[in-house]
């Protein structure tokens, strides 16, 4: 079953050119798809079109085979959770657990069940110790994990991460990536991750590159992320580890393309041993 489907979707902001041009994209239930692209490529607009924060000028959006309309947007919002970029602008309450409760309160979950949901959400993002903590005292990565928990507590079937790691330090980014993988495992959610970090896209089942509002390339992350010339066209760069392994190869060390730090060390060790 298709969890999310964009059919010939176009959208333009008031000022000038189209932000999204005739996009066709579908995400299978349970799949993990990464959308890559430079700033202004239209990738974030795509997220907002999924639950009625923005409305497509042309084309249609389907969520679990239901056409998104103004009538059912409230219902569909329960299925589509979005975690945004800024860890400071997503919380409404000052205390962690109160903030996580905001979503469930909005949809009228009874108190007992709400407590359970908050427990599980906090556990999934590994923030159980911070239940009663003040949000303003937490680090960016921790705030963002609370934001993820706030969405998890709504039990959406699709989670969209709209550059949720862009404003974090490397440690915070890693934490969020771990949380994404864990929420998939624990709740079986479908994930659409919008990012401009190549390394993050490697963890996905499928990578989609957006360029100037269109889908420019699509495929297995490891296939897509090894063509430097192609990536250059979309103003994207190779993952750092691939770049290093190629430079080593050019320098005469016989290493293959490595997509992670572990692979790179493995390749280098292997090259030295042989």
């Amino acid at each position: 079953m298709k969890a999310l489907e964009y059919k010939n979707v176009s959208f333009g902001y008031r000022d000038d050119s189209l932000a999204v041009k005739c996009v066709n994209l579908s995400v299978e239930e349970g799949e993990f798809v990464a959308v890559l692209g430079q700033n202004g490529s239209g990738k974030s607009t795509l997220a907002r079109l999924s639950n009625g924060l923005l409305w497509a000028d042309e084309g249609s959006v389907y969520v679990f085979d239901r056409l998104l309309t103004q009538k059912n947007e409230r219902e569909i919002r329960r299925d589509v959770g979005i975690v945004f970029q800024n860890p400071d602008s997503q919380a409404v309450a000052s205390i962690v657990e109160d903030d996580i409760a905001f979503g469930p309160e909005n949809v009228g979950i009874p108190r007992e069940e709400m407590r359970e949901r908050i427990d599980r959400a906090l556990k999934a993002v590994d923030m159980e110790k911070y239940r009663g903590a003040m949000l303003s005292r937490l680090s960016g990565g921790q705030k963002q994990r609370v934001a993820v928990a706030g969405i998890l507590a709504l039990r959406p079937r699709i989670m969209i991460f709209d550059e949720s790691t862009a404003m974090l330090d490397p440690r915070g980014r890693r934490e969020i990536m771990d949380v994404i993988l864990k929420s998939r495992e624990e709740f079986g959610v479908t994930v659409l991750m919008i990012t401009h970090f190549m390394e993050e896209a490697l963890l996905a089942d499928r990578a989609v590159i957006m360029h100037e509002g269109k889908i420019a390339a699509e495929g297995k992350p490891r296939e897509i992320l090894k063509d430097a010339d192609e990536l250059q066209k979309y103003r994207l760069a190779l993952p750092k580890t691939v770049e290093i392994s190629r430079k080593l190869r050019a320098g005469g060390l016989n290493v293959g393309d490595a997509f992670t730090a572990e692979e790179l060390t493995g390749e280098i060790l292997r090259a030295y041993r042989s």
Partner: protein
Amino acid sequence: MKDVSFGQYYPVKSFVHSLDPRVKILFLIVFITVIFVAKEFLALGICAAVLLIATLFSRIPLTKFLRAVRGILFLVLFTATLNLIFYPGETVYWSWKFLQITKEGILFSAFLVIRLVLLVLCSSLLTYTTTPVALTDGIESILTPLTWIRFPVHALTLVMSIALRFIPKLSEDAGTIMNAQRARGAKLDEGGPVSRIKAFVPVLIALLISSFRLAEELGDAMEARCYGCSKKRTKYKKLKIGWRDILAFLVIAGLIASAVLLRVFPQFPF
């Protein structure tokens, strides 16, 4: 700017912390009414004593309260001085042209200082011991009857809770903007009051723009979290009245009673 201690929750476990926010709000209202109605030092003395006991039970370091008082020190001294030299009275100690210091003036100024200090201490006690959420929950519960006339009580208290939640963020942003402008040569803490205020305008504009952006992002995030999706909203935290609250309630009643007694029998011999 960095130090926004006024109105910040201080997380420890104590008797006062565990009280129902509604009881604490009621206490604050009664307390303020009493100190503004009171005309005798004795009444203020009783208030101060009650507040001191409550403060001791709150397990909040007294330095926190001193800092809150320091925040209004200028205001207190200013009003006290004005009253001291302008207050008319019979027993004149010193006078020059139209200024005079009288016994009545001294008493009145002293009274005013105590009133203002008690006011700040009591409201600080409330905000130190009550989380912003509990506070807004309390206000929401107190205002609930207004929903009968279709007053949007929940929306109002949500606005309050969000405002409270963004105070630390905005003060942090203000600090960043000020530093960025200082780094580019802005003189924010030099010169007279007028030039200082002028230098502050660019800071305020930048802060305003950044808060508009935050507000827009927050709006999206709230909608994505189904705000307004369902007509029947539930509440995670339910306020409950316990034995402690009843005890606090008795203290409040005692406070009212003694204030009334003092008003009715001003010459009451203690």
